[in-house]
C-alpha cells in the first residue's frame, strides 16, 4: 500500500487533470476506514520512526541530486567570477588572474571541485564566499531564520485568511458570498506580490505611518517591533498563497459536506456550525495540507522578491546578490539549503496527516 502522502498526491493530480476537463475537484475517498473493523494501533511509534527515517533518507537523496544539479548549472552560467572578483578595469595581468583563480579553487577539474565541495559538505562546511560574505555556512545560518520567520508568518496569514473564507464560501456555495470570496481568491493569485508590497509601503508605511517601510528587527529586540516590521512583508507574501488555499478549502469542504455522514450528523440535530467545522472541515483538511506543503517552494521564491522590496536581510537577498556577483559558493549553499527545506517541509506535511486523520495513523 502506498503511503498516505503518495495516495493523496496521486489523487490530487488526478483531480487536477479532471478539473482541466471541466470536472469538479473531489476529496479523495477515504479507503482506509472500515466500519467496526477495530483498527490495530499497536506499533505506531515504530511506524512513525520508520516514516521519519524514510523521509530523512528522501531528503538526503534530494540534496544529493540538487547538489549535482546546482554545481554544474552554476558553472554553466555566463560570467567569470575571477574577473568580477578582480575588478572592472581588467588592469590585472595574466599571472594575477591565474593566481586568483587558483586561490578561489577554480583551476581544478570540475569533478575534483565537486568532490572537494561534497567533502566539506559532510563537515557542514559550505565553503567561503568570494565576494565578502564570509563563511557560507555562517551567512546562511544568519539569514535562514529571518526567511523562515517571514515564510511562517506568511503561511499563518494565508491560513487565517483562507480557512475562514473557504469555509464560508463552501457553506454558502452558489450564493453571492461564494462568488465574492472566489473573486478575492483569484485576485490574490493574480496580483504580483512585488506590486502589492510597494502598494502597502506607500499606503500603510509612508502615508499612514502605521508600519515601518523596510527592515527587520529580531524578535529578541522586542516582540512588538518584530511584528510591526514583519506585518507588511508577511501580508504581501501570504496573500499570494491565500488564493489557491481558499479555493482548495472551498472545493474540499464542498465535497465533504455532500457525504452521507454529514447528512447523518445534520439529521441527528447537530448545529450547522458544529457539523461544518468539526465534521466537515477536519475531513476536508488532508488535500489542503498537501497543497500547503507543495506551496513551500512558492513561498521561498516569493520571499526573494519581498526581501528585496522590504530590505529584509534574509536568504532571498543573499541569493540575489550571490547570483549577480557570480559567487558560486553562496549560490550552491543557498540552493541546496532551500531544496532540503522544501523536502523537509513536505515531510512535515505528510506527518500532519497522521494528526488529522486517525485512519492514516492506524495504517
Amino acid at each position, binding site marked *: 500500500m502506498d503511503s498516505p502522502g503518495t495516495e493523496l498526491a496521486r489523487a490530487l493530480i488526478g483531480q487536477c487533470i479532471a478539473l482541466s476537463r*471541466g*470536472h*469538479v475537484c473531489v476529496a479523495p475517498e477515504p479507503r482506509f476506514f472500515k466500519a467496526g473493523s477495530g483498527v490495530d494501533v499497536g506499533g505506531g511509534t515504530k511506524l512513525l520512526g520508520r516514516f521519519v527515517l524514510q523521509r530523512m533518507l528522501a531528503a538526503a537523496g534530494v540534496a544529493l541530486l540538487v547538489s549535482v544539479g546546482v554545481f554544474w548549472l552554476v558553472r554553466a552560467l*555566463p*560570467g*567569470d*567570477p575571477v*574577473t*568580477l572578483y*578582480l*575588478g*572592472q*578595469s*581588467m*588592469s*590585472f*595581468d595574466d*599571472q*594575477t588572474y591565474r593566481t*586568483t583563480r587558483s586561490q578561489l579553487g577554480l583551476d581544478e577539474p570540475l569533478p575534483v571541485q565537486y568532490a572537494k565541495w561534497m567533502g566539506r559538505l559532510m563537515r557542514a562546511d559550505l565553503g567561503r564566499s568570494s*565576494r*565578502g*560574505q*564570509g563563511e557560507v555556512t555562517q*551567512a546562511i545560518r*544568519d*539569514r535562514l531564520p529571518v526567511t523562515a520567520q517571514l515564510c511562517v508568518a506568511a503561511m499563518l496569514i494565508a491560513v487565517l485568511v483562507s480557512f475562514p473564507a473557504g469555509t464560508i464560501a463552501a457553506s454558502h*456555495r*452558489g450564493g453571492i458570498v461564494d462568488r465574492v470570496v472566489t473573486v478575492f481568491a483569484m485576485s490574490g493569485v493574480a496580483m504580483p506580490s512585488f506590486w502589492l508590497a*510597494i502598494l502597502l*509601503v*506607500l499606503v500603510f*508605511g*509612508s502615508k499612514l*505611518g502605521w508600519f*515601518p*517601510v*523596510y*527592515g*527587520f528587527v529580531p524578535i529578541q529586540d522586542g516582540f512588538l517591533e518584530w511584528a510591526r516590521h514583519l506585518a507588511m512583508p508577511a501580508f504581501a507574501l501570504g496573500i499570494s498563497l491565500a488564493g489557491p488555499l481558499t479555493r482548495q478549502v472551498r*472545493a474540499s469542504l*464542498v465535497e465533504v459536506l*455532500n457525504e452521507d455522514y454529514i447528512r447523518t450528523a445534520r439529521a441527528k440535530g447537530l448545529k450547522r456550525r458544529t457539523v461544518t467545522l468539526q465534521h466537515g472541515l477536519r475531513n476536508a483538511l488532508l488535500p489542503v495540507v498537501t497543497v500547503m506543503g507543495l506551496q513551500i517552494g512558492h513561498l521561498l521564491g516569493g520571499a526573494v522578491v519581498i526581501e*528585496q*522590496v*522590504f*530590505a529584509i*536581510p534574509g536568504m532571498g*537577498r*543573499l541569493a540575489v*546578490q550571490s547570483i*549577480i*556577483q*557570480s559567487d558560486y559558493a553562496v549560490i550552491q549553499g543557498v540552493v541546496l539549503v532551500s531544496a532540503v527545506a522544501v523536502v523537509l517541509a513536505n515531510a512535515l506535511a505528510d506527518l500532519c496527516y497522521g494528526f488529522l486523520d486517525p485512519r492514516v495513523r492506524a495504517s
Partner: protein
Amino acid sequence: MEENRNYWESRRVTRRSALRAAGLTAVGSAGLAIVGCGDDDDATSSASPSAVSSSPQTQPTQAVAAKKGGSLKVAIGAQPDGLSGSLNSSGKFDTFWQQIYNCLVWFDENMASSGKAAGLASSWERTDDKTYVFTLKQGVTFHDGTPFDADVVKFNIERVLDPKTNAPARAQFAPVVASVAALDKYKVQFNLKRADASLLGLLADRGGVMESPAAIQKYGNDGIKMNPVGTGPFKLKEWIKDDHITLSRFDGYKADGDGSYPYLDEVVWKVIPQETVQVAAIRSGDVDFIDLPIAAISEFKGDSNFRVMRKDGVGWLGFFLNCSLAPLDDVRVRQAISYAIDRDKLIKGAYAGQSKPSIGPIWEALSSYYDATLKPQTYDKKKAEALLQEAGFKSGDVKFEVSATPPSGQAGYGVAGEQPEVIVQSMLKEVGIEMKITPVGKDTFDRFWFKDQNLHGYSSGYSLRSDPGDMMFGAYHKDGTYNAGHGSGDDPKRGRFDEVSNLIVQANSEYDVAKRKSLFSKAQQIINDDVRSLFFADNFRVIALRKEFDGFTWYGAGKGSYRTVHRA
C-alpha cells in the same frame, strides 16, 4: 436523490450576467485609468535643470553654531564588497571609503586642490618635471592610533604598486610613479617615470588612499576590506551584512577643519534596494538622506521638509564604442549613428528632461578643463542618411550590438522613463541602422569589453574625477584600458587615433593648466568629430536631506561628504 452539485455545471452564463460583468469591468477599468499610473507631468513642465538646486554651499553653513551630535541615516541601494579605499573596484562605492579615509591630496567643492582641502598633504612642490615633494600635515593619526607620517605614505604607495595587492589603481600608477622616498618625518618625494600632470588627480583617488599599516599587517589584504582603518572623519563601528553599516565619529580627526568637525555621532547606511521604498522611507523619517530618483525630483523640490541639492556635470552619459570592430571601424558609420540621435528627445524620454546634452568627455564640474566652446555631436537625420550612402551601406546593412545594464531611477546613476538604449535603437531604425541591445551581467561585460573586445559598445559614461588625464588616457589613448579595440593610426576612413593619443600624452606631460586645457580641447574636438564615443547627456546628482539636518557638501568629486553635516 442526490442533487447535482457539480460546480461547473451550476455556473450558467446568461445574457444578463454577461452584460453585468462587462459593465463592472468597464467601470473598474475607467476608475483605474483615472486614478491610474500617471507619471510625472512635472517633468515636462519643469524649468531648466539647474532650477532644482538649492543655494549652493561653498562651505559648511553655520559651522560655528553647529553642535555635535545626531545620527544621520542614509539609504543606499547596495552595499560595497568592502570598505578599503585602495582595494575598491568600483567608483560607484567611492562615497563609502571617502568618509573613512583621506587621500594624500584632495580637491574642494570647486575642484581646486590645495592644502586647505581634506588631503593629508599641507603643500607640495614640483621640483622638476619628474619630481614632487609633498609636505605632510602633522598631528594626524589613524583610527587605531597609528601616527601618519612619510613612512606611511611610502608604505601605501608601494603597496599599490605591488602586483600582489591587486589594487585597481596600479594600472594608473605603475606607468607614472617610479619610486617614493621619505625625506624626513613629514616630507615625502615622488620620483616619476615621466612628466605627468595627472599625478595629483591620481593621488586624490583610490591610489592615494592612506591606510593604517598596522591594520594591514593585522588583518591582511582581504581582511582590511571588512576592517578599514583610515584617518577620515568617521570610523567603522558596525557592519551587518545586507542590513546596515554604522560609522561613528572619529574625535581625533585632524585632516581638515581644525577639530571643529565632524559633528555627527553616527552615519548609518541602511541598505534599501528599492528606490520607491527609499522615497517612502525618507518621507516617513526612517531615513534622513537619499539619492533622489529622477522621477521624484519635482515632487521633492517644492517640499519644505527637505533640502534638495543638485550637482551638475558630474559625468557624461552615452555609449563607449569599439572603433576597431566593423562596421564601427568606419568613421562615417559612427558619424551617421551620432547624427541620427536626437539628444533633446532622448533626454526627455530617458531623463525626464532633467539634463542637457553633453558636449564632450571632460566634465562641466571640472571648470579648469571644461571647454564650453566645443562643437558637440548634433542631430541631423539627413546627414546621417547621406553618410551611410557615402559609406556604401543600404538600409538594414549596418548592424551592431551594445550592452546595457539594468537602470536605476536615481539621478546620477540611471534613468526615469525609457532606457536610453531603447530610445537610441528606435532613432537608428529610422535611418536604417539596426542596433541590438544585449543586457549582460557585469562580469560577462567585463570579459566581452576588456578581454575579448568583441562588443561594439556599451551604455555607460564616465563619472567626474579630480583630473581629466586618467580618464582621457584610459578611454581614448590607443593603449588605454577602457579603449576596447585600441585603434591606432590616422586614416580618414577610420579616424585620427594617433593624433588623439599624442595630444593626450602631451597634455598629461604639460603642467601649465591653460596649455593643458588647450591640448585636451583639441583632443576632445577630434573625439567628438570622429565619434569615438556617443555623448548623450550630462550626468547629475540630486540628493534629498531632511530639514533636521544641514551642512552637506559636494566634496570628493561630486560624491559628497558628511563630515560637515550637522543637526539644523
